[in-house]
């Protein structure tokens, strides 16, 4: 799981509708990617970047 950013952190407001939010709830129950909405979205997005090779 990635840490919180330490250098020059910027906040991006990302919207999820109630149907997309099901994903976050499922991952919250799983526990692997954090406990809060922010942690989960950040961590799976960073996983996405890693898998994409960005």
């Amino acid at each position, binding site marked *: 799981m990635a840490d919180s950013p330490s250098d020059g952190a910027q906040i991006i407001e990302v919207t999820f509708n109630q149907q*997309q939010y099901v994903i976050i709830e499922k991952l919250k129950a799983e526990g692997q990617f954090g406990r809060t909405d922010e942690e989960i979205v950040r961590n799976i997005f960073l996983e996405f970047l890693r898998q994409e090779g*960005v």
Partner: protein
Amino acid sequence: MLQYGPLKTEVLLQPVSGKALPVLRGEVIRIIQEEGGQCVDFNAFNLHDYKEYLGVSNTRSRNAFRVKKGDIIWSVSSRDRPMFVILEIAETCRTDLLGGRCRASLFDRRGYGLHTNCQDTLSAAIGEYDLTPDDVHDSLNLWMNTEWDSVGRYFTLQNTGRKGDYVDLLATIDTLSVAAPCGSGDLGWTSNFALRPIRVQVFEAADETLARVKEIERQNTGFKGQRTPDEFKVNKIKADRELRRNQSYVPEFVNYPIINKSIRVPLSTDELAKTNQLVSAGLGRDAAEVIRIGAILWYMRNREPGRRSR
């Protein structure tokens, strides 16, 4: 190959005729090329509720433009249940889920007058069960060697069916199944400029076929949206033809209204730079959209059950 039960029904369909046959859960309908080279149109209905019928677009979107051995044939999206599974299919049998069915006007406009066609053949066959021409639906087309080009133009190539080739469909619900030799084939490659008979057999259920049905049910039923009429807000079949507005009706749309929740996602300078690379590449309009799309794509690829890789 699964062990089927004994032969229950056998009919030889001369060109151009059709027959509606009950094919019950666990039974197998075999459609055979009597001489070869004949396109076959196939319709099917839930035997106990004709409003549930074979869903060509549902089957297409769940499988491909063509179905193959092992694929499930689904009912219409309002019910969304497996109706059949393709147990066996000759390698010469090109299947088609794009062409719908031919109808008389296609030929009359070309100067042939009233010509045989699948809309009318299927109508005549299902009339035995008091169904009307409006109840004929787009066909699962068998031995229909169609192609399309890069701009979507659709055309038919030579029929590849050989004498004795067959397709076996295992019914996963009680059905009224209707097979018909396509009536257009004497004026094109659909059936190589000829009209030929087909043979249809129905085999009774057996332990192995019923076990396969149960396996399909276990894997493909019980999901939201696989509704029965009891769950419909409007579930009475209209008995008249005129459409009139119901003044008291209030629609109930799914998950309406759509509500957005905002989540504040912290990114480092380096992470934001990578995100903006994806904005530049066109993944989303801005960093927020890229994060949402990326997060959802990650979930789909890594957590969705049974998702095909795309």
